[in-house]
Structure formats: structure tokens, C-alpha cells
């Protein structure tokens, strides 16, 4: 099986992010280049008390319906909403599709940990009788896929991918393989996370990964800036509809982009620190390009992992400068959206597909040519018009998981 002989197409996108409900709201928010970070009441009194949150739902937004929202973890709710949007965007009808041929692969880094935190508090304060039996379905990382497949009647292969902050990209990679192996005909692939809680935020803060700019939350996430000091906690979900390219064409869908290469490697270096030489991350990039039958010189655009942590951005910038010295445009959505852990790679894959379709690269928030700390062609201040034939999306996770996706114009 070669990818060249069987590319898959991204035919639908759904997103819920701090920039808003839906693909359009997210795209426009990211194009605006203004951070969504703000002081967060739930984090009041903590050393880091700000985050990027999905805004409160307006009328008609964010509704699960059918009396089912109460039983779903927040990460699962976000995934269900994103999946519905993606399926509608792809022009698919769950009432009439062949359910057994539809797969669901959705990753999450911390899944329902927020609910475990709530229920642990109840257990300690009120005892075992007041622990919710719903904790179990709200906790497990599989339940984003579980609720999506139930909501849409998808009866093919389903699973969660777990690779921390690469989870959503791993899901896209696994989805591609399910399609090319013939296991199913349509896959809803994505990532979701809702990790903004006092305990989890405290742990990330103590790990030294969060920006501590409490006096200026909206200026805190500064991917690739010289003075960056960490990432900003975020939440969200994205789901992509993937189909084999010939199937999509057969029903008249050109799609946003084709996924032509997936590189997956592992650092085997440290539980939470990326390997300083970036060698495994580089191998992921090179593998993905080779799979697509491309060379590094073919890359027009990089949607970077770009977390705004000192170490990630340094190693990633080194990787881009080393492998792609011709200077493709670079962006990171985390300046606007913060870091939504396992959701981020799916959101960024969706944004990369939109960049290809729209011929537009969003700017990095909180970055200027003067503050840029690396010799990269980062887009700043305003969106850049660019015809993109080949783009790569980088995702790197705690655990040493590296995933690079190659997307090409359809």
C-alpha cells in the first residue's frame, strides 16, 4: 500500500475553539491575530489565573439536545458538536449513510480529568453516596469517539488515540490508515480536550510549562518570540471528515485538501522534555514528505506546533530552519487559541486545510519581526495571501510523540 496510490481527502471540517462555535468563527478569529486569553474565575487565586476558554454559548449554539448533555464529559460534548458540523460540511447525511462503513477516531490528552477532579471533591466532602455514577462515562478518553458514534450512527471501527499534545494528529493518521486498508469508507477524525481546572493548571504551572504573564494574559502566548515564557491553557475540539480521494471525487467533492503523508516517530529521550537535537521530530517530517513523494524544498507552508514554551519553539525552529532552509511561511495558531493539548493538532490540521483552500496564512499573535527569536518566515500582524500547494502540520507531545501531516491542494 502506498499513499501515492491512495490519497485521502479532507471533505468536512468542524471546530469549537476559544475563537467561537464553528469552523468559520475559528478561522476568522485566527485570521484576526488577537489572543483569546483572559483571566479565568475558575483559576482565581492560582499562580497562573488565565486561560483561553470556549466562550459561553449564545442561543442556538453549543446545544447537544435530546436530554443527553448532562451525561457527557465536556470534552465529549465539544467533540459531538464539532463532528456534527464536520459531517454537515461534508454534505453527508447520517440518516442515510452506510453506518457500518463509517469510522470514528478521536484523541484527547486529558479527556474527562476535569470530572474526576469534581467528583473527588464531592467524595471527600460528601462521601461515596454522592459520587456520580456518570463519572465513568464522563472520564474515559474513548468517550469522545463513543458519544460521536452514538450521536451519528457510525458503526465502523472506532477508538481514541493517546499521544498527549499530538493526539489529534495521531487520530488523523490512524484514520488515513483505516481508509487505505479498506476497513471503512468515511472516518471522522479529530481531537478534543477540556482540561482547564485548578488542579491540572496547577500541575502544568509547577511543571514550568505555562506562561506566567498574569498581568497581561492576552500578550502571554507568544509563539517563536524571543521573550516567550510558556503556553496558555486552552480547550476545544476539531473533527475532520476523511474519505479516499477517489470516493470523494465520485460524489463530486474536491475537498479542502488531500492528506498525502503522515510521519510518526518517538524521541525515546524524556517523559516531558523534547529531545534537544530534534532528530526524531525531523525524521517524522522527512518520513511524511517521502510518503507523499515530495522533498523538503516542496513545502510552501508550515503550521507549527509553536506552543510558546522556550524549549519547544527553540527545537522546532531549529528543525524548520535546518530541513526547510528555503523559508516557507510559518504560523502557529496557539498565539490566538492557546494550547488545547490533544485538540490542538486537529484544530491545526483543520486550519492548515483552510489555509490551502483559502490561499491565506493566519498571523502569529503577539509576534512582530522585531520580537521574532528565530530565522523563520513567521507571518505576523496580518494574514498573508499565499498560494499553497504543499503544507505540513507539526505536532509534538509529552511522551516524545512526534506526528507530522502533509496536506496538499486537491
Amino acid at each position: 500500500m502506498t499513499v501515492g496510490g491512495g490519497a485521502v481527502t479532507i471533505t468536512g471540517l468542524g471546530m469549537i475553539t476559544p475563537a467561537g462555535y464553528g469552523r468559520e468563527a475559528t478561522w476568522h478569529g485566527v485570521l484576526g491575530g488577537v489572543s483569546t486569553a483572559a483571566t479565568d474565575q475558575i483559576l482565581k487565586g492560582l499562580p497562573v489565573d488565565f486561560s483561553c476558554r470556549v466562550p459561553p454559548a449564545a442561543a442556538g449554539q453549543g446545544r447537544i439536545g435530546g436530554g443527553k448533555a448532562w451525561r457527557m464529559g465536556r470534552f465529549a460534548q465539544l467533540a459531538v458538536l464539532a463532528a456534527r458540523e464536520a459531517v454537515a460540511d461534508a454534505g453527508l447525511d447520517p440518516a442515510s449513510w452506510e453506518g457500518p462503513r463509517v469510522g470514528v477516531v478521536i484523541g484527547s490528552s486529558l479527556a474527562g480529568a476535569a470530572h474526576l477532579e469534581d467528583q473527588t471533591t464531592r467524595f471527600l466532602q460528601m462521601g461515596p453516596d454522592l459520587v456520580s455514577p456518570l463519572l465513568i462515562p464522563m472520564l474515559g478518553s474513548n468517550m469522545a469517539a463513543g458519544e460521536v458514534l452514538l450521536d451519528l450512527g457510525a458503526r465502523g471501527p472506532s477508538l481514541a488515540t493517546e499521544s498527549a499534545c499530538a493526539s489529534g494528529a495521531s487520530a488523523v493518521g490512524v484514520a488515513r490508515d483505516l481508509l487505505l486498508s479498506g476497513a471503512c469508507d468515511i472516518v471522522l477524525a479529530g481531537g478534543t480536550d477540556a482540561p482547564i481546572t485548578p488542579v491540572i493548571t496547577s500541575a502544568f504551572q509547577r511543571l514550568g510549562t505555562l506562561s506566567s504573564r498574569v498581568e497581561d494574559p492576552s500578550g502571554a502566548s507568544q509563539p517563536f518570540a524571543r521573550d516567550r515564557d510558556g503556553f496558555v491553557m486552552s480547550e476545544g475540539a476539531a473533527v475532520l471528515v476523511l474519505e479516499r480521494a477517489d470516493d470523494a471525487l465520485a460524489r463530486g467533492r474536491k475537498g479542502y485538501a488531500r492528506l498525502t503523508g503522515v510521519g510518526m516517530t518517538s524521541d525515546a529521550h524524556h517523559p516531558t522534555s523534547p529531545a534537544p537535537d530534534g532528530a526524531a521530530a525531523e525524521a517524522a517530517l522527512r518520513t511524511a514528505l517521502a510518503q507523499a513523494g515530495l522533498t523538503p524544498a516542496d513545502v510552501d507552508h508550515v503550521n507549527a506546533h509553536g506552543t510558546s514554551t522556550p524549549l519547544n519553539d527553540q527545537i522546532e525552529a531549529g528543525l524548520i530552519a535546518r530541513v526547510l532552509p528555503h523559508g516557507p511561511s510559518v504560523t502557529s495558531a496557539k498565539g490566538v487559541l492557546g494550547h488545547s493539548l490533544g485538540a490542538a493538532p486537529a484544530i491545526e490540521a483543520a486550519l492548515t486545510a483552510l489555509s490551502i483552500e483559502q490561499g491565506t496564512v493566519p498571523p502569529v499573535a503577539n509576534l512582530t519581526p522585531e520580537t521574532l527569536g528565530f530565522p523563520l518566515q513567521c507571518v505576523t500582524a496580518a494574514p498573508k495571501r499565499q498560494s499553497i500547494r504543499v503544507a505540513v502540520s507539526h505536532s509534538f507531545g509529552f511522551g516524545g510523540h512526534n506526528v507530522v501531516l502533509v496536506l496538499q491542494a486537491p
Partner: protein
Amino acid sequence: VSSVNEALLSLLIGQFEVPESEITPDTTLADLGLDSLALAGLALELREELGVLVEQEEANKDTTVRELLETLTAKTAAA
């Protein structure tokens, strides 16, 4: 009695999104669309709202709204 009635209605309509028009004294919880997970959730919410422990057999799929209200009324009176 009215507070028990209100608490149950508010849970069924609010949390479980049951249309108010479907709720009659003789409707069973299954008829209202409550499955096993929903029944477990309902029992927990009633315990929090009213401070009464509802046993599994007192709020199962075949229990009617009238029966559940009688149980809740008796338990809150005894509490």
C-alpha cells in the same frame, strides 16, 4: 408537596430535556426517555435537591411519575 413536584419537574424538563407536555401522572420514566444512566443520574440529583435517598426499585423504567412523586413526598415528610 409542591416543592417535591417542582424539583422533579425542573429536573425532567431542565436536565433531561423532556417536553413538559409529555409529563403526566401515569407516564413511566421509560416513556419519558430515561435510560439506565439517566435513572442513575436522576436518583443522584434528587438526593442532592431533596436530601432523600431513592432506591433503584423506587425509580426504575416502569415507575410512573405519580409513583415517584408519592415516594418522594413520603420520604421528604419523614426526613
